């Protein structure tokens, strides 16, 4: 007959023990929009040509 120990150490009696939680994933990122095409420059060239 195997007997399981009732208490292995005094810490196990602490009332505020946390429960084991699930694995947590935390990620943080950024998004940089594409640079606008140089339409202004194109417009200037169009005006010059006309």
């Amino acid at each position, binding site marked *: 007959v195997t007997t399981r120990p009732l208490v292995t150490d005094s810490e196990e009696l602490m009332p505020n023990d946390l429960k084991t939680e699930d694995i*947590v*994933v935390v*990620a943080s990122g*950024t998004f940089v929009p*594409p640079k606008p095409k140089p339409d202004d420059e194109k417009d200037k060239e169009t005006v010059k040509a006309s």
Partner: protein
Amino acid sequence: MAFRLANATKDGMINAFGPLCNSGSVKIYGPASGAATTQPATPETTIVSGTHGSLLVSIPFATTAFTTSSGGAGNIGLNGGAISATVSASGTASWARVFKTDGTTPVFDVDITVNGGGGSMTFDNISFITGGTATINTMSISQPM
């Protein structure tokens, strides 16, 4: 009696997780324009564009995706720093699925919100535009206890 993981167990669990992502990818999905998108019920759920949104960008992990946990930290982070890719379709980033290197086997799903919105993955701007660059600066996976 509280359930507690030994340090070596925590590290072992989390270190088994990281290699699943080696040379894998983070694929970010969302609706094209303001439409509602629902995150799939499970990572095994087949993605249906009308329900779950379309692929906006696929960001590759490094060959060794994550660092190694030791000393009972139970935590791993991106190996080699930030990862990024060019956005292939415009839309609102809503959720992401991490795939193994084969590009088809799911590892896990996470929700995405703008910073402060409470998502597991957050971006400063979730209005992705084709040709822009999406960067994941940090990603940590931890076994708290």
